[in-house]
């Protein structure tokens, strides 16, 4: 069995709201091993997106710790954390959030450009990734010219651009119809089979069922790990 690449311990997250604290997470712990496909499922407000943001270094926990590839995130400066997100973590969001003025290829190239990779390398890698997600023929189309499913596939290609150790997806099928959602499911399955470690937040049971392990959340707590 491979070792854990992600170790989250006793995570709490409180948000102030109208003078009171909202407890979004109440002591969640999680281990993710390399090449694992983990789904975090639960109803709205259960804290699953918050958990994803904490393990992705987008937000800091009120207490508890996150360790990614042996590095504690709370020990990193903002700049180091940004660099870690760029090079070690891939993000896929519900609303894709591609840059509409850029082409599919330019969107995929963007994280590589930020990481300082050369033009030729970026171009080749973007072409390779777009072909992988089945959009080689749409590389030069602007994001606004793509369908929802195509945009999400471009977003996945963008997330994979810097060969991350961990791919995090927050409701990746939430904005898609059932048929397009199935395409994304199939893409995630293929990604995992090809060695990508995936943590997917979803309230879609079908998507959750695809994962090797499903973690259920309720009221900010992890209910039961299911093999």
């Amino acid at each position, binding site marked *: 069995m491979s070792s854990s690449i992600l170790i989250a311990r006793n995570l709490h997250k409180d948000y102030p709201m109208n003078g009171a604290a909202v407890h979004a997470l109440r002591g969640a712990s999680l281990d993710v091993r390399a090449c694992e496909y983990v789904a975090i499922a639960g109803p709205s407000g259960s804290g699953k*997106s918050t958990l994803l943001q904490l393990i992705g270094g987008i937000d800091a926990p009120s207490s508890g710790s996150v360790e990614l590839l042996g590095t504690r995130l709370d020990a990193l400066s903002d*700049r180091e954390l*940004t660099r870690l*997100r760029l090079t070690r973590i891939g*993000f896929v*969001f519900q609303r894709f959030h591609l*840059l509409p003025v850029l082409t599919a290829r330019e969107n995929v190239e963007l994280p590589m450009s930020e*990481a300082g990779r050369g033009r030729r390398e970026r171009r080749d890698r973007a072409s390779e990734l777009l072909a992988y997600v089945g959009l080689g023929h749409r590389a030069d189309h602007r994001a606004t010219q793509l369908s929802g499913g195509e945009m999400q596939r471009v977003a996945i290609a963008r997330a994979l651009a810097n060969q991350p150790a961990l791919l995090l997806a*927050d409701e990746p099928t939430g904005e898609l119809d059932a048929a397009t959602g199935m395409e994304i499911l199939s893409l995630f399955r293929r990604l995992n089979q090809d060695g990508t470690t995936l943590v997917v937040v979803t309230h879609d049971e079908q998507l959750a069922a695809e994962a090797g392990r499903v973690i259920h959340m309720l009221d900010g707590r992890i209910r039961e790990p299911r093999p």
Partner: protein
Amino acid sequence: MNDWIWSIKSLARRRLRTVLAVLGIAISAAMLLDMVMLSGGIEKSFADLLTAKGYQIRLSPKGTLPFDTEATLPAAESIIRRLRQDPAIAAAGAVLGASLYGRGRDSLVTLFGYGIQPEGQGLYWLQAGSDLAPSDTNGVLLSSAAAGLLGAGVGDTVRMVGRLDPQVMTGSVDRKLTVRGLVHWVYDYRGQPSVGTVLPVMQMLAYGHREDRASLILVKAERDGHAPALAATLRTRFPDLEVYSVADLVAVFKQRLVYFRQLSYVLGTMSLIVSVLLISTLLTITVNERLAEIVTLRAIGVARSTIVRQVLIESAVLTIVGGATGLVLGLGTARYLDSILTSFPGLPAAFSFFVPRRESVGTAAVVLLSAGCLAGLYPAWVAARTPIAATLRSEAT
């Protein structure tokens, strides 16, 4: 992905808004450029006018500025003789300004007369015919306006009348003179009918008899760089006269135009503030519209510095495009305004209010670009400081 292309594409998303903002910036930039040209241009134009014929020093009656009053200085010939003996002086010439009349086809025409010493004149360029000889007491030079009013050309005879009695409309001095040449008088206003004779003839026309007086004396130093020192020496040698170098006259002129310059500074500053507000407002709106995009970029690992750079580049693009448009607009506006202002009576036609100098265009460009970048700082700060998680949460709901 080139940052500049990314910025241009981002700005092109809202084309109409961007075009309107660029137009606004262009108008402000044009106004700024015009004000910068105006604030320094008048002095530059005045200095150029004073040195148009290379004479750097003026001597005028005590307590007066050259041609500012009707005061004259006595013993002009003696002063000129002394000046011409000075080896530091290349040329010197006395000038007497006087009102006189010319007989036109069927009436008297009001003229302005210059009494000059052709061997030391700094007042005109010959355009047609020949110049006056120093001893030519029968010749006259005409401006094209005077030639038109008198209906005379080179070789014709004209009658000049001095000391006119308005009751009987006859003058006590009446001279027939032959037109030797047509000249362009450097300090004439547009359409000014001016004539020039040698100094003794103009003294006769002005006073009715030969009186050795002049309105001012022009002095050309052997070397340009020595003019201020020469002016200082002349001040000591001629304590009864005012001695002005070009720099002195520009300083006096500057003092007189201080309110004009203050006005141009105020208007220039206002136009700059309008530019800053326009750019800042547009980019703040744009950044707010793109917050989801910006936090996504931050989430996937794009550094704050990249986001800041991107917003500042957008600000620079707006400023550069607006500034370039404003440059063309400003130069066009300046030319138009100059044509209106220089047509005011009493102003030399060669005088300009708006002088497009490399320094003024450069100053306006640097000030505008700096202001543009400054304007981008606040929206860039907003973009860089936006909390990622909170914004993503609010986007999801």
